[in-house]
């Protein structure tokens, strides 16, 4: 995993003459928490083709005080009755239970991720698991199993249909589909009830956008590579957290100032999110009360700044705008 060395976020900060203290603190918090979890989970019996994977803020290296342990037991194979470690055993190690949607905290079979792309079998849950696995996950145990499974998912996307010096449309379409699915699901959840509207909206404006951009930007940049190099490039990119992928794009496309402001806004959001009163206020905000909330006003501002930077690198640099025009809409 290419998570060490001089990291793009550090380089962006260095070139822009600024720091990202909350992102760096979150990375340190993630590393410390990961170390604890790795030690405990290593004690559990593993089948040779299983590993424990953490997603969400763990995969983004952005753990805050209230981050959930969104884990899955990944099986590099097909569905079967018995899997070691069991979900119950793994759950005993984690501090905070996964969400209630059934996306996390269950065995996930690589075969389903690979074979069920598209059509009815690719339900919301399978799409979510696959995209989070690709875009914001990190192995806690058995890294070799994790790499093998990710390689199989990538192989499925980077099949014979890809062309040298063209973004891989299959994976690009699925990444865009996942972002739009999150946006549509946000509206569906609001219709079901106003609870958590504020925090969901805030995440859509910030961390979900980071997740999406962390996939979109490298995929568009694939247009610079031949087929072999494209695969190596994506493997290397996906080994980094999304903020490093985004920072690298800003660096390579000469948009250091815009990148520093965009990730600076995200850095500020993470800092605020680590504050209990801010989080509580967001939890309680609804569409009706949003205009009265100072916390939500900050989210709007920071989300706007983040998006402005991302749009600038997509539309006002010397190379990406043509790629966006050719591939991002149709």
């Amino acid at each position, binding site marked *: 995993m290419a998570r060490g060395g001089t990291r793009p976020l550090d380089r962006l900060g260095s070139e822009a003459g600024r720091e990202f203290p909350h992102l760096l603190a979150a990375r340190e918090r993630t590393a410390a928490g990961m170390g604890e979890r790795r030690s405990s989970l290593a004690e559990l019996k593993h089948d040779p083709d299983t590993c424990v994977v953490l997603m969400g803020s763990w995969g983004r290296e952005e753990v805050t005080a209230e981050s959930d342990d969104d884990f899955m037991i990944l099986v590099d194979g097909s569905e079967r009755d018995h899997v070691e470690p069991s979900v119950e055993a793994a759950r005993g190690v984690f501090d905070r239970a996964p969400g209630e949607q059934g996306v996390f905290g269950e065995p996930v079979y690589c075969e389903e991720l690979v074979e069920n792309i598209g059509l009815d079998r690719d339900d919301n849950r399978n799409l979510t698991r696959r995209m989070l696995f690709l875009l914001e996950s990190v192995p806690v145990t058995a890294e070799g199993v994790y790499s093998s499974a990710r390689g199989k998912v990538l192989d499925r996307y980077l099949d014979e249909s890809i062309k040298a010096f063209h973004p891989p449309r299959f994976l690009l379409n699925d990444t865009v589909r996942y972002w739009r699915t999150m946006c549509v699901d946000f509206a569906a959840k609001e219709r079901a009830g106003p609870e958590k509207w504020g925090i969901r909206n805030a995440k859509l404006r910030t961390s979900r956008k980071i997740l999406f951009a962390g996939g979109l930007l490298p995929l568009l940049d694939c247009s610079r590579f031949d087929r072999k190099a494209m695969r190596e490039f994506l493997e290397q990119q996906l080994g980094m957290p999304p903020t490093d992928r985004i920072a690298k794009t800003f660096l390579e496309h000469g948009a250091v*100032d815009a990148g520093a402001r965009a990730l600076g806004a995200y850095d500020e959001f993470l800092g605020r999110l680590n504050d209990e009163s801010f989080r509580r206020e967001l939890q309680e905000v609804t569409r009706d009360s949003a205009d009265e909330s100072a916390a939500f006003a900050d989210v709007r501002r920071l989300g706007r700044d983040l998006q402005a930077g991302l749009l600038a690198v997509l539309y006002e640099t*010397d190379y990406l705008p043509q790629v966006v025009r050719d591939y991002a809409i149709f």
Partner: protein
Amino acid sequence: MATATRPERGESIVSRHHPVGASTGYMGNLRGDWKAQVAESWTVSPFAIELSALSETELPSLRQYLSAVPSLPFRYVSVHGPSKNRQLDEESLVSELTELARYADAIVMHPDTIDSADRYQGLGRKLLLENMDARKSWGRTRDELAASFADLPEAGFCFDIAHAWSIKPDMSVAADLLDGFSDRLRHVHLSSLSDELHHVPLTEEHEQLFGPLLDRCVDVPWILEAPPRAA
């Protein structure tokens, strides 16, 4: 890795930027008629506008206009606060600006017009300080603006690139301002300047000269302080 690159694009940097907007400050013939100024701005860009109340006497009518109009079409609205004909005491002025801030994304002020920074704290991040031109005695350089930002730590930076050019035409002051306040940058004022340092349409020569620095500002609105250059 085998990689491909493509040649740089040769088009105008202003024409490819988004969003660009107009300042109503150059619409002297329409002064006092906010509706007409907004309509004129819309012909330049429906995305951004700066409502310029450079004279204090324009504030009440602007507030009346903004409170009456259902909504403006622009996604980014800034208000340029008074820099001349100041008669209101500062507390009353800030009170007016605070009312206007309800309708705007930003309130731009000249740092040399601020007597007591404390009074402006309530504007928070909506307050932007603009760098001044060579005619002024304060707020022109990085050091001078740093002192103002020290008093108003939440304030953003409105980068008037022509003002910076007027201090040093080699653009070193402009670069220094961006180096110092890039993380505060919220929007750009864009024009050329006449010999008397009045805003005039951006010349092709200045667009080329300003280009490398404008490239560092691609994520914020650019407000034209003079009519767009005729095609």
